[in-house]
Each structure stands twice: as C-alpha cells, then as structure tokens.
C-alpha cells in the first residue's frame, strides 16, 4: 500500500469493501439497479452464472474485446497469406501441376485461401481468450474477497454485491444503509490483505 488506506477495520486492516448477500438473481438484479442509480462506480455483482441483462442493470459499458479480436484476426490473415506467398515465391519455388507460384496479382491465390483463413481464426481465437483474461485482470490467484468463506459460495448458489472502498463516493455507513435498503443481508466488511 503506497497511500495510507482511507478506511480501516477495527483490527486496523485496510478495508477492501463491503459485501451483501442476495438469495435470487432477481433480488441482486434490482439491487444492482439501485446501486447503479446511486452513482457508485467501483463495485461488482458476484453470481454463479452470467445473469441476463445484469450488464445493463450495473451500467457496464460494452467491452472493447471485439476490436482486439478483430485486429488479431486481421493480423493472422495477413501473416497466413505472407507465409504462403513467401514460402512459394521466395523461400522455395516449386511448380506444382503447372499452377502459378501463387499471388493475388499473378493468379494462383486460390490455393492460399484455406491456410490464410485458418491462421486468421487461430490468432483471433487466442486473442479472444487472452484478451478476455487480460481485460479481466486474470490470472489472479489471490483476492481479498476469496478469504471470505461465504464469498466462495458465489460459485455455487449465492449472489453477492461488493462496493469497494476505492470508490470516491464510498462511505461505510451510507454504503451499509444502501445495501440494506436494496435488500442485502449478512453485510460483511472485507479486509484488504
């Protein structure tokens, strides 16, 4: 911690955030709308599966991932074509069945279509997985929330909202009040350690 923590728990540990539990997707969905409308930014909904429409309820902007994937696929298409063009025209010229060596300008590009496509898809797919993980800040094997036994149940059937202390609007009492009024139960302080 470079800067001193804005909030500490009774044990003197910096505060990561405050969590509240919800029993159903509908409850957490409506709570998310409330918190979005209250103007918080650093907060999250934890759910065992993607709840339909929760992005809208939380006010999440659409991800930029498609652009990354598109760019990677385009690079793949280009690399795939260049590999073949170079291999057939420069690296090792071979005449096969009297066909041209192969290039867009001089004909014979047809033979290059399958591999060009495959390499494009290959790079695009890697970019999808790696891009998704990178944008999500994963892999990250330690997280303050994971210290909480109850939190681990969000991978089973529990729904949770955590408002983080780094939010500019964060104020412990008001946050607790908000979470309670939104229907949250078992409010808990999460220490940042």
């Amino acid at each position, binding site marked *: 911690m470079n800067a001193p923590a804005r909030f500490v728990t009774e044990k003197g540990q910096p505060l990561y955030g405050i969590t509240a539990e919800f029993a159903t997707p509908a409850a957490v969905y409506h709570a998310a709308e409330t918190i979005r409308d209250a103007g918080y930014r650093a907060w999250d909904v934890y759910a065992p599966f993607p709840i339909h429409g929760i992005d809208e309820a939380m006010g999440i902007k659409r991800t930029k991932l*498609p652009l990354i994937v*598109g760019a990677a696929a385009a690079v793949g298409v280009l690399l795939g074509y260049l590999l073949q063009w170079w291999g057939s025209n420069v690296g090792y010229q071979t005449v096969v069945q009297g066909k041209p060596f192969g290039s867009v300008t001089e004909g014979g590009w047809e033979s290059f*279509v399958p591999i060009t496509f495959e390499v494009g898809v290959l790079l695009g797919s890697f970019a999808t997985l790696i891009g998704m993980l990178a944008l999500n800040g994963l892999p990250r094997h330690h997280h303050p929330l994971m210290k909480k036994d109850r939190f681990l149940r969000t991978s089973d059937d529990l729904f949770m909202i955590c408002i983080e202390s780094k939010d500019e609007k964060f104020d412990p009492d008001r946050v607790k009040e908000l979470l309670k009024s939104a229907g949250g139960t078992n409010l808990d302080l999460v220490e940042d350690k």
Partner: protein
Amino acid sequence: MTQVASDAAGGPGFARSPWAARFPAMRAENISLPAGAGGALSGGLVLVGLGASVATLVMPMIGEAFKWKHAIASFHVGAITALTMSLGALFFCMVFHLVNAGWSVTVRRQFENVASLVWVGLALVTVSVMLSVWKGGEGLWSWMGMERGENYLLDKKSAYLNTPFFLLRLAIYAVVWLMLAGLMNFFSRKGDAEGGTEAAARARLVSAPGMLAFALTVAFAGFDWLKSIDFGFFSTMWGVYFFAGSAFVSVATVTMILAFLRRSGRLEGVVTVEHFHDLGKLMFAFCVFWAYIAFFQYFLIWYANIPEETAYYIHRKQGGWENLTTLLMIGHFVVPFLILIQRGVKRNPTLLIAMAFWLIFMQVMDIFWMVRPAVYAGAPADAVPGATALPLDVLGILGPVALFFGLLIRKVVSSPLVPLHDPRMGEALTHKNYV
C-alpha cells in the same frame, strides 16, 4: 370460424388475440396497414414491371440487333431473382416451424408473404421456358434446338435434358412449391382466425416432409434453369449454391420490408432492434455461406482443372466477365462481410435497408453471372453486342423484379403484419440478444 384475418384493423381476428390484452404493442393499428396503403407504389411497380417485361420480349421482334436468346436471358435473370426470393422465404418459414423458433414469430408473416408469391417467380420462369421452347435453338437453352447425334454429351444426357421431361419437371416443382407455400400461409392465416396451438402444430408437421421435397426440387430446379443453360457443365454443388443465394436474398427482402414498415410507424415494439439484429446476423451468415459454397465450387474445379468443368469458369474469367466475377467476390462477400460483422450496423434498420438493397442487387448480379455469359458463348467477337444491348439487360431484369415487388406490396398490405395468435408470440415480443 370463417372469419379470416384480412379483416380491416380491429376485426374479430385482432380482438380475440390473447396477446393484444397483454402487450400494448399488439394493438390493431400497430400491426396492420389500412386497406389500399401503398397502392400507388404497388400499382406503379406493377405497371413498370409489366411494361419493362413486355418491352424486353418485344424488342427481338422489332430489331435485328436484339437477339431472342439475349432477351430471354435477361428476362430469365429477373425471373430467377424473383423466384429465389420466394424459395428462400419458403425455406425459412419451414425452418422456423421445424425448430419451434420463438424469436422469429413477429417476422415470420413477411417470410410467408414473400413465399406466397412463389407463383410469380414460377409464372415468370415459365414465360422464359416457353419462349425458349418456342424459339428452339434461338432460345436460352440451346440444347432445346439441337438434334440427336449433334453433340456427344447432349446425347448422353438426353434422357434428362429433353423438352417434355423439362416441362414435366417444371410442373412438379410448381406443384410442390405452390403446395408448400400455400400450406404455410394457410396455417398461418388459420391461426389468425382460430387461435390456439393447432395451426402451428400442423404447420410443423407439414414442414418436415416439406423440407425434404423442398431440398430435392430446389436442387433440380437449379440444375434445370441455370446449370443446363450450359449443358456441358456439371457440378454436384450446384443445388446448394442455388439454395445459398435464395436464402441470402430472401432475408434481405424481408429485412427491407420490415424496415420500411417500421419507418411507416408500424410494428413499434413488435419488430424491435433485436429482431433486426438477428435478421442482420442471418444476412451475414448466409453471405458467408454463399461465399463458402461459391468459393469451394470454383476452387475444386480450378484445382482439378478438368476441361469439361473448367470451361464454365474460364469463360467467366475472360472477355470482360472477369470484372463481374471480381465484383461478385468483393460485393457479394467482402463488403457485406466487413459491414455486417459490425454490431451497430445490424441494429440500425436504416443501414440494413441500404444493405438489403445492395444484397438484392448482388443476387441479381450472381444470377446474371450464371446466365448472361452463356448468351454469346462461342460467338465470334464481332457478334457480341456492346452497350447497344444494355437496354435489354436493364429492362429484362427490371421487369420481373419490379413486378414482383409491386405484387409483394399488395400482399403485405392485405393481412395483419404478424401472425396474430401464434402461441410463441410472447417470446418474440420480449426477444432480446443479451450479448
């Protein structure tokens, strides 16, 4: 229960719809057009269509410069374009029923409307077939005027390629398609009148064997009306190729209808941006599918380089036709691919109208590419007319297509814009693409 749904807005069919009570968007004025709407446009298009068609087919009688074969070919391009719209729509009607699709209920009526006009395409194709039969060797199918023993390949194929059988097949296709399109519309209108789930279940029952009949007839119709123009050429993929184009153009047509209906203030909250998104996806998917089929058909023939197959493509890669081939590659695949892959475009009905126009034009070009180069194949260079023949091409294509759209507008206006009572309507009205 004889009340049919062509009632004016607010008729009994509307009132009984259980959905009207639950979804305000299902109010009668939102899901129907007043009788006679678009009458001027429709009438104008029909007149233009008839005029252009007649002009095309009269020109060869007047001027020596206009060849019968050319006139019929141009007219045939327009006729086949109109036919493929209906065939693709018929396919989608049956698929929607077969897979019990929920989202598509609010758009299905327009597919049914387009499919029900299969008689127009059939009638137009019959005209070009009959004219060719009448003109024999001067007609579009040169083999119709050839004698036995004149050509080895034709002799081998004569059990299939002979005029009586050709006409018989036309009749078989016509019966199958008219019946299927008729049944799809019949059950849909029956659902409008009666409600309940019976009609939808029946439509599904018909669709399963219907799809089998459809697949076979479409494939052979493609062989007959497009492939056999060049009787030396053969390709097992041809039926799929013909189908791919049909599916593609029918989605474009329906998207265009729906987008125009939305612009005229109808279908508010019924056909939403989510439906346009899905229609856009279908356009995108079939644009890729068409490219896949078209590419592999060409690719395998190009690679194996067997003379009797390659001739077809060689002819389309020289003499100026290579420009059309390039246009198809770029305009039928690359451009729509790059545009339609974007989410924003698929969710913008105005842009989709532009795309739909473009795609219909590309379907015309695709059929043109199949038919037109055959007209002067093998003719000496000085016998090939340049721009002088342009009126034939423009009028010939414009005629059938304008006629089709004119009749389509009348059809769209004539009944409620959605199947009123479809049991899956609720799903369609609340349809949402979450990702």
